[in-house]
């Protein structure tokens, strides 16, 4: 069984909606409370980046299976300005806004897999997975 959900991410209300949907799927997948908390926190960070820097986009939340393991995969995609220096953006404390610069680097620590695909003028796609 593979569950799959697409959510518009355009406003801070949508960030709340992403958190709620991700929570529901993490519970359904049987993640522990600590794992649920980590996944929801990463989702909140990435969804907010989509709104604040990407000019809005969408999220795809899915339950995935691989080698008998269950995982929760989150994809955040926008058609915004993209990121010029990804390595710099991934550093703790780096922010072009007023943020703490923890969203990208912190989400990478909270999830098992982290992939970022971004180029100036091309938008940004971040894919993260946590396995149970």
């Amino acid at each position, binding site marked *: 069984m593979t569950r799959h959900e697409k959510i518009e991410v355009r406003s*801070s209300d949508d960030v709340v909606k992403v958190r709620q949907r991700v929570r529901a799927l993490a519970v359904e997948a049987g993640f522990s409370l*600590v794992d649920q908390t980590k996944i929801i926190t990463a989702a*909140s*960070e990435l969804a907010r980046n989509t709104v604040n820097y990407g000019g809005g986009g969408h999220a795809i939340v899915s339950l995935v299976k691989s080698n008998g393991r269950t995982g929760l995969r989150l994809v955040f995609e926008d058609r915004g300005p993209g990121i010029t220096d990804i390595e710099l953006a991934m550093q703790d404390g780096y922010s072009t806004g007023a943020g703490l610069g923890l969203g990208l680097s912190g989400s990478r620590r909270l999830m098992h897999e982290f992939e970022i695909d971004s180029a100036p003028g091309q938008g940004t796609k971040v894919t993260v997975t946590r396995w149970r």
Partner: protein
Amino acid sequence: MEKIPILKMGRFLLVSIQVDMHDRLAMTLQEDLTDRIVKENARGVLIDISSMEIVDSFIGRMLGSIASMSRMLNAETVVVGMQPAVAITMVELGLSLSGVRTALDVEKGMEILHRFRQPGEEETDIDDQA
């Protein structure tokens, strides 16, 4: 407009965050709290986050700025009731909440606020809001 209620108890303000706060609501809370600290001449702010299922970088930043703004207005802030899973996640996220005083529950938080009252300041009753 949706708002998070701020209760007054003597010289202290109490806030319990019960909803999954969106960012605008968090900004409003920050402004409302600083207004009320001045208006009520408050000496302490207690923020109960026991219902919050996550504290991300935005909420962490908000708690930090509430603490430093209230300090500038001569009020101490204590954040109480953080869930263990939230604490574990915050550490991994890299959020330290430095400059924010925390306590396990409302009772311990109130003890801390009472300790911070200046010596010689008269005891206050739970009075009605002006």
